[in-house]
């Protein structure tokens, strides 16, 4: 039993790693294509049919490019930083139930690496640790822009972690558990959390969604690596595969957040049937698409606007929301 459990876990880990690495690559393709369509361009089209092999070409380029360690950096930290980003992104995946459990060859598979009973807290914590990638990368680089990016990153992450934490408190109070599987069960019985509790769930959902943009560092909150201000921020001095790891981490994060949002608020995989699994994938696809859509549609905000939004708008709303939830539940 224990050996089987071990093997299963290893297999799951490997599968998740592979799938999401690949997804990160394909994600870039989708992003370019979708942005291109929205901007009346063609996007990648030369490598392979519809430019599909562009992903592979990019991968080869990244892997084979020379790994430059500039002088003046703090070498060990400089080397570790991208790994942190990538690995935390995948570590967060350990507590996410990607699909309902299913049977294969008479063996029940739980598509979750570890069903720990503090799943949400764990995800939040790991997302918090994800901050160290940009932070250490920026501080270790011998570059003022990188340092600025690190400072911005730290500020944004700390601030929006508050909003994230507060916004999911109300759903946690409804469910009474920190496990994502329990969330799914609850929503199966009581309907989606978005529509629960006279709009409290909806407000929490919106807040979490907004915070998700900041947590992943996507437009319109793309200021820790804002091209027109601070070049590539913490990534300025990186090249080759190290830069690629940052890249994979960012896209993996986007996918995980896209999983977490429906799991938390939109009913997850439902009753566990094939239909439910497909529905979950559909929701994930929508949220991933939404990230790209927003990038095409909206400009970036200034850092001060971002902090203003966090501390003076979102956080008060989140606190009031929690109070409302508590009052209504009483």
């Amino acid at each position, binding site marked *: 039993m224990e050996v089987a459990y071990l093997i299963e876990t290893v297999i799951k880990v490997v599968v998740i790693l592979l799938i999401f690495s690949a997804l990160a690559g394909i994600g870039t393709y989708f992003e370019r294509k979708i942005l291109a369509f929205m901007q009346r361009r063609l996007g990648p089209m030369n490598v392979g049919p519809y430019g599909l092999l562009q992903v592979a070409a990019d991968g080869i380029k990244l892997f084979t490019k020379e790994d430059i360690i500039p002088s003046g950096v703090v070498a060990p*930290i400089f080397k570790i930083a991208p790994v942190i980003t990538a690995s935390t992104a995948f570590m967060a995946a350990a507590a996410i139930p990607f699909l309902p459990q299913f049977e294969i060859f008479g063996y029940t598979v739980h598509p979750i690496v570890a069903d720990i*009973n503090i799943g949400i807290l764990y995800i939040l914590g790991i997302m918090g640790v994800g901050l*160290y990638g940009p932070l250490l990368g920026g501080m270790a680089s011998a570059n003022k822009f990188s340092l600025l990016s*690190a400072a911005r990153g730290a*500020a944004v992450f700390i601030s929006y972690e508050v909003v994230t934490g507060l916004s999911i408190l109300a759903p946690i109070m409804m469910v009474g558990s920190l496990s994502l599987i329990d969330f799914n069960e609850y929503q199966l019985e009581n309907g989606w959390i978005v529509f629960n509790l006279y709009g409290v769930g909806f407000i929490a959902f919106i807040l979490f969604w907004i915070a998700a943009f900041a947590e992943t560092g996507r437009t319109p909150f793309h200021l820790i690596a804002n091209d027109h201000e601070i070049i590539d921020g913490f990534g300025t001095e990186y090249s080759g595969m190290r830069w690629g790891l940052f890249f994979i981490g960012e896209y993996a994060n986007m996918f995980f957040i896209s999983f977490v949002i429906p799991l938390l608020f939109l009913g997850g995989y439902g009753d566990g049937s094939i239909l439910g699994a497909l529905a979950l994938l559909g929701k994930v696809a929508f949220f991933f698409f939404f990230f790209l859509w927003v990038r095409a549609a909206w400009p970036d905000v200034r850092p001060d606007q971002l902090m203003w939004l966090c501390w003076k708008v979102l956080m008060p709303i989140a606190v009031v929301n929690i109070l409302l939830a508590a009052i209504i539940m009483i």
Partner: protein
Amino acid sequence: MFEAIAFYLFAFLTALMFFITVTTSQALHALTALAAGMIFISAFFFILGADFLGAVQIVVYSGAVMALYAFGMMFFDTTRDVKEKQGNKYIIAGLSIVSAILVVLIFAAPMVTDNITALYPMTEGVGNTQDVGMVLFTKYLVPFEVAAVMLLVAMVAGIVLAGKKMDASLTEMSEAEIEEINTRELS
């Protein structure tokens, strides 16, 4: 088996990280090592079944405390070498080790005499989070609220200290200088 392996692995890693933290002359190394050590410590908490404490350890220490320290480092421009005068190493090490051993002796003393009884025993069949919640909001409600107030006070203090005008000492200034500051503030 797993538990022993995990314990020794993490014990080694934690000790190593903390050792780096206190000995390295690279401030960034110290920061990274400390953050890593904090995360490794949370591993002990998970091993010990204190899941919630472990999560809190990661969220608070790694997510907030260390990030603040990182801010401080950027602010004070101490991301590289730190020049420090060195004292007598033997005294330092000797004192620390002796005191540590004494602390262990004192910790161990009640266990030798078996004087400890579980005041708030863990409930069977309930997750650690629930368990913690029960005790925290019943038996330890007052300390919890006091801690909350303390955090609030600390927050206000931090804001005020790091805020404007705190670099100037009003007590050391002349009246004219204070007046000048006030007029500048108004205009």
